[in-house]
């Protein structure tokens, strides 16, 4: 959810800056990769010890950051899921689905025979209940869900979320296994939305007792709770033998809750954890010691370090209503001036990649270099700054860079300030703590500031619509282009995947022309796993399918 847990690390361990996971793999001591992919030889049994920081929630009702999502993903099947290895959306609780012509009505056909952990069947009615539970503040008046926005396109959402008694979302259970959902506007990417675990089904009998349920949710996934979540200590889950699909190899997962990364790393070294985040300054040492996974995502013995790109981006938001930054030449000048590779190498030890697009590389429709001005080119920067000077009728620029303090963002800003100096732009930094910073962004009381964006669903729309559609809450650059708005709305109604992606690519290029924000870096994994872990795939959305991994005996 939040990029506050910003990890910093040191410069690239490969001189130059080879950026891909495959290149990193060359640095590792050569351990034969034949052990990997030996899925036939998968051993059953064993418990995975998984490092977790205390989640916000593991109940779909409020599941938000990737910590809670990880647990929720093991406990629940949503209608669909995004399979990163295959690169496509696949059915989970739903076996198939279809949309009407203008993408306002979706019909999901549910898998028959699937049950909740308490034995109740998963029916269309379970979804109707779960989704209304998610959206209505009457579910828990003291604690309304903050993630109900996922379903904001469903008809009737406004009334339900306002707490109007008796109001329901416009969705119906045609029969036990057919679910029809009506949307209030065309949205062809809806099947991706329902891959989010907040939309997972819950059994009414159990979930109505909120006080118990949130600590030990009863789900429909491949794993079930073993006891309740002990806040600050652990969450234990075990294999659900009644699961409809492929059953897990491992017996269960012990999510060990640790508050800080240093302790976690020591635990990992002591052999008490099967995975951890790599602390700053240790990436190169860890990569050399444990070996790097060639694909960046799948951990196997000898290929234990995961450094694959994630679907999240670090960018500078420009205030498009500001006197200076309303000028596209100025925004492009700043972008051209920034040596992104130097930031990735100096501060992040190569665990970030210079961004050349606002869409991250793991997303279908990503085009390398689509945001043309998102690269280091001092000559171009000087050209643009002259144009900006002419447009604005000034001789020199003095600007303020904003960021939130205490998470290492200051270091990035200082490098950017040095870059800007080279093109004659005097920049000062204003680092305030997070709450004040967010307030500044919200009030439009800034020129240029930093932000991160993590995709909820792996689709282009999840970048373009929240960020660049006029008036949206996440559109903190206050960018507004009626042509873009119109093209976005039109693209959202295109049911055919390929056509829609092509349309969104066109929108993306339109936005890149205006260059309202400045993409800086894409994030990468900084995960290392123990050498008994096989085929543990950590996707670019940081999700793990625990059913596929197995532990060496």
């Amino acid at each position: 959810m939040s990029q506050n847990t910003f990890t910093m690390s040191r410069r690239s361990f490969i001189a130059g800056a080879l950026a891909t996971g495959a290149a990193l793999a060359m640095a590792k001591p050569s351990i034969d990769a034949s052990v990997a992919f030996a899925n036939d030889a998968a051993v059953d049994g064993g418990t995975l010890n998984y490092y977790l920081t205390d989640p916000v929630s593991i109940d779909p009702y409020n599941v938000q950051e990737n910590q809670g999502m990880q647990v929720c993903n093991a406990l629940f099947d949503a209608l669909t899921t995004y399979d990163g290895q295959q690169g496509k959306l696949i059915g989970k609780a739903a076996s198939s689905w279809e949309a009407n012509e203008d993408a306002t009505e979706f019909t999901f056909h549910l898998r028959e025979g699937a049950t909740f952990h308490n034995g109740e069947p998963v029916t269309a009615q379970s979804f109707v209940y779960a989704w209304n539970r998610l959206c209505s503040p009457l579910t828990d008046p003291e604690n309304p869900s903050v993630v109900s926005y996922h379903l904001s396109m469903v008809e009737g959402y406004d009334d339900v979320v306002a707490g109007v008694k008796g109001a329901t979302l416009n969705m119906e259970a045609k029969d036990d296994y057919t679910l029809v959902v009506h949307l209030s506007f065309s949205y062809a990417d809806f099947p991706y939305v329902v891959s989010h675990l907040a939309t997972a089904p819950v059994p009414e009998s159990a979930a109505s007792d909120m006080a118990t349920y949130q600590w030990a949710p009863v789900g429909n996934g491949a794993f079930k709770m073993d006891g309740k979540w002990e806040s600050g200590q652990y969450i234990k889950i075990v294999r659900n033998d009644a699961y409809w699909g492929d059953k897990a190899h491992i017996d269960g997962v012990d999510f060990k809750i640790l508050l800080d990364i240093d302790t976690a790393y020591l635990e990992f070294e002591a052999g008490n954890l099967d995975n951890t985040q790599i602390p700053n300054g240790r990436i190169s040492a860890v990569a050399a010691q444990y070996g790097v996974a060639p694909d960046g995502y799948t951990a196997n013995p000898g290929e234990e370090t995961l450094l694959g790109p994630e679907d999240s981006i670090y960018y500078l938001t420009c205030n498009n209503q500001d006197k200076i930054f309303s000028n596209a030449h100025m925004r492009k000048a700043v972008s051209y001036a920034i040596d992104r590779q130097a930031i990735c190498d100096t501060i992040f030890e190569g665990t970030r990649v210079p961004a050349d697009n606002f869409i991250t590389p793991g997303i279908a429709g990503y085009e390398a270099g689509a945001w043309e001005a998102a690269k280091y080119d001092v000559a171009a920067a000087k050209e643009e700054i002259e144009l900006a000077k002419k447009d604005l009728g000034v001789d020199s620029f003095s600007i303020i860079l904003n960021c939130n303090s205490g998470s290492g963002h200051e270091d990035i800003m200082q490098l950017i300030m040095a870059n800007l100096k080279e093109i004659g732009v005097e920049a000062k930094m204003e680092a305030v703590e997070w709450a004040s910073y967010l307030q500044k962004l919200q009030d439009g009381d800034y020129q240029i500031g930093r932000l991160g964006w993590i995709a909820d669903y792996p689709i282009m729309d999840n970048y373009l619509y929240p960020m660049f559609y006029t008036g949206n809450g996440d559109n903190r650059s206050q960018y507004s282009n009626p042509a873009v708005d119109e093209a976005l709305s039109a693209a959202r109604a295109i049911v055919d995947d390929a056509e829609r992606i092509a349309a969104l690519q066109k929108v993306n290029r339109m936005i890149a022309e205006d260059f309202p924000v400045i993409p800086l870096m894409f994030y990468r994994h900084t995960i290392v796993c123990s050498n008994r872990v096989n085929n543990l795939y950590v996707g670019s959305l940081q999700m793990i399918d625990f059913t596929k991994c197995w532990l060496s005996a």
Partner: protein
Amino acid sequence: MKYELAEDYVAPQENALEASKDSTKPQRTLWGDAFRRLRRNKLALIASVWIIFVVIIALSADLWVPQTFGSPTDIDSSTSAARSLLPPRIKGLENLGIFDGTTDKKNLTTGEMEHINVYQVNAEKYPNSGVQDEYHPFGTDLLGRDVMSRIIYGSRISLSVGLLATSIAVLIGLIMGAVAAYYGGIWDVLIMRLADIFLAFPYVLFVIAVLAVFGPGFQNVFLAIGILGWPSIARVFRSAILSVKENDFIDAARAMGAGDWRIIVRHIFPNSVATIIVYATMSIGGAILTESALSFLGMGVQPPTPSWGYMISDGKTYLSTAPWLMMCPGLAILSTVLAFTVLGDGLRDALDVKMKDA
């Protein structure tokens, strides 16, 4: 000293002006005595020399530091990765195997230790990073800036925050303490209750909350530390003034028709000045510590302006891989604060001020 002053006032005076003129006479001997006593205190002497040294270095930094060690703020993005986190290296000491630009000596076998020069050729970070001609006595930080240079420039922040914050705290504390002590009654109750309320807050939390209101930055930091520092000072002055107030010369001055404020400013303050000086000297150290704590938490002066506390927090992330980052600024804080405390102790003894310990 009290005795002397009191005696002076027992003698009948023609007018108030003359009275105040005379009152300075014994003070001169008081200061003279104090200075002599201070000079005999070796520790205090060393402390003052250190403080003067730091002040001179801080003031003259622009003239020589950037040329000698490099700029404390400027970054060259094309070389920042190469210069990043270089360990300490001092010219002339390389052959001794200390401060030679390497850190990890634990892994060396005894045989290798004998051929330390060989080891340097192979493992030295400076040549590997292409900066074999550079010497950074305290190493470099993440962005490739010289730590020594940053520490010297950081002293400007620490010293000025210390001085300014203390001045503000003393000024407010003085007024509050004086009003409480001199007027007594409801004023005393009100002001001391207010002080209680301020002291009931966990201090650092309070400063943080106030800084959250006004935002970080040099000016706000010293204002916040200063404004929130008054209660304890007010308490000290209140009791100091109460003890002065009991003296006959105050009654004498009042009998001659001197107004309240005149008495406070002309008679009470000069007689509590020793307490003020001692307390202020000690508070400077405290203010420097508070500033470093705030910077450590990211609420101090804004980067790239170097500040010692901020540098330590920078080093927290690299504790195991680049310990010099937190070590050097910490030593700077320690030595400076220590100097102010020792000097304060010395002054207290020299001026014979009775203060509660702690």
